[in-house]
């Protein structure tokens, strides 16, 4: 006999399972991007008999509405993954779906936007002509095209340069027009390959703002980057790829283990600082001291500093950064690669 509550739980669970079944079987996916065991090998050498693995058995999902950062050093497989998703190259094994549809279904491209790495466009066109040209593939009417193109040029700060041929554009301007063509048709999923590349600090800030705006609008963004601070600032989750293999995936906090490794106090103290044992191992710059200590000793230390007449400027947690996590992975991969080379395997 089920109690009333237990019965309701069973019904609820059955409904959830049914919903999942419907999602899977009616082509509706919960994840915006689903990648399953994706691999890519490139033939090389005489008669192309040797194979180099560029991507190995990649499985991951990018959830609907999230900003996902794809991190990795040069040649790690970031661009390969993105090109596979965009069907610019074809996988050796594995599959991927975007918005529940196979990447082989070109009609799905109407709902995705893509910025290639170091984009290069038809340089005989002006920015306005290029966007109008791309907008035509999305079946927009002439008035819709005109409105969208004008709005987009303004958004990326190129409205004053819209009549200049792209051959006269700087790298940063090309990056902006690339971003504009990627989001022109208001796609549900936006894939950006190194969107900050070639931009000055102001340009980077503008791209960050655009990514955040896309997130606010509920769009899914997958972007690759080398710049870890950008990833930390923008991403809900990140995936770290090294040597063609996914080495970690999660929120930046999960990856670096958010548990604080201690506390750091920044203070100002003039005069008899030498009497305080607390300051013996501190880093000193003029009258400023930077002290690191275990969290359990924080309050006692603050009391002692207050007693000595110190002015506390800040108290912060010491946490490992995403950069440290990333560097550890890269170094471990390189060490493994050289060990394999030495052993001749």
């Amino acid at each position, binding site marked *: 006999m089920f109690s009333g509550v237990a019965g309701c739980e069973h019904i609820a669970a059955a409904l959830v399972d049914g919903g999942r079944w419907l999602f899977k079987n009616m082509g509706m996916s919960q994840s915006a991007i689903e990648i399953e065991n994706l691999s890519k090998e490139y033939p090389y050498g005489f008669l192309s008999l040797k194979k180099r693995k560029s991507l190995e058995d990649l499985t991951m999902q990018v959830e609907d509405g999230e900003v996902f950062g794809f991190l990795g050093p040069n040649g790690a497989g970031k661009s390969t993954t993105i090109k596979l998703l965009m069907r610019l190259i074809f996988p050796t094994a594995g599959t991927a779906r975007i918005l529940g549809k196979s990447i082989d279904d*070109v009609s799905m491209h109407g709902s995705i*936007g*893509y910025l*290639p790495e170091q984009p*290069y466009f038809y340089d005989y*066109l002006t920015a306005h002509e290029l966007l109008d040209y791309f907008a035509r*593939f*999305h*079946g927009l009417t002439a008035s819709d095209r005109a409105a969208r193109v004008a709005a987009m040029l303004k958004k990326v700060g190129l409205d004053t340069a819209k009549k200049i041929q792209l051959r006269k554009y700087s790298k940063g301007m090309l990056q902006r027009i690339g971003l504009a063509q*990627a989001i022109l048709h208001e796609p549900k999923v936006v894939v950006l390959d190194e969107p900050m590349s070639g931009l000055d600090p102001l340009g980077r800030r503008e791209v960050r703002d655009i990514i955040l705006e896309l997130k606010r609008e509920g769009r899914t963004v997958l972007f690759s980057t080398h710049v870890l601070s950008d990833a930390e600032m923008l991403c809900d989750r990140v995936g770290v790829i090294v040597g063609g293999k996914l080495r970690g995936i999660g929120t930046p906090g999960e990856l670096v283990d958010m548990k604080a490794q201690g506390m750091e106090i920044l203070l100002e103290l003039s005069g008899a600082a030498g009497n305080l044992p607390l300051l013996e191992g501190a880093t000193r710059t003029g009258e400023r001291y930077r002290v690191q200590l275990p969290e359990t000793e924080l309050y006692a230390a603050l009391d002692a500093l207050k007693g000595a007449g110190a002015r506390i400027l800040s108290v912060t947690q010491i946490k490992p950064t995403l950069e440290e996590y990333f560097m550890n992975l890269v170094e471990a991969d390189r060490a493994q690669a050289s060990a394999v080379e030495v052993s001749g395997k």
Partner: protein
Amino acid sequence: MRNVQTVAANTFREAVRDRVLYNLVFFALLMIGAAILVGQISIGIERDVIVSLGLSAISVVGIIIALFLGVALVSKEMDKRTLYALLAKPVKRWEFLLGKFFGLVMTLTVNTAAMAAGMYIALWSVYRAWQPSDIFILTAVYLILLKLAIIVALALLFSCFTTPFLAILFTAGVYVAGLLAGDLRTVRGVELDPGALRLMRGISYVLPNFENFNVMGAVVHGHGVPGVMVLQATLYAILYIAIVLTGAAMVFARRNLK
């Protein structure tokens, strides 16, 4: 077909902006010079010289454009990676190829039409009157255009799977072999193994028979071309281009970009 049309229009715009049609200036100067010269040195055969020279120039300039631009249609887009953003749009690869083909054929049509107009102006400047046989020149120009369209299709096919240099070599090779396809088909009185003869005939049917499009001799001497021949040549060109472009689309459909 909307995507094909969009790509074609942009390909034409590229040719115009990259000043491909500047060759028309050279052609105009050639025709004006020829008209003045033949007016002075030839008696009674001015028309033959102008028409012969004009049709040859249309053919040669057209072949150069079809060969080099035809190969560049796809390879340039792959080298410069302009293709990346385009293929991420809802555009099928065969639509891109077809658009590129029609864009260049459109360019060649404008080029050829302008050159033909130049030739007619040269004829007018010599005779100050039209002759009934002048209309046949248009037939020759049309057939040259069909020949150029086949060369563009071949250049596209080769550029889909090899380097631009090799694609130019292969296309030029097939063009030269295609000029001899008719001879291969009708070879007589040569002591050859029947197997080799069959192979030779087989190859001749695979190669584009460019003799189908050569009516220059008749037109230069003021003779007309039978309508059935023009129709046959048109159907042959359409069929040949369709087969070649289908092959190109099949190769390009699974081509990994850089």
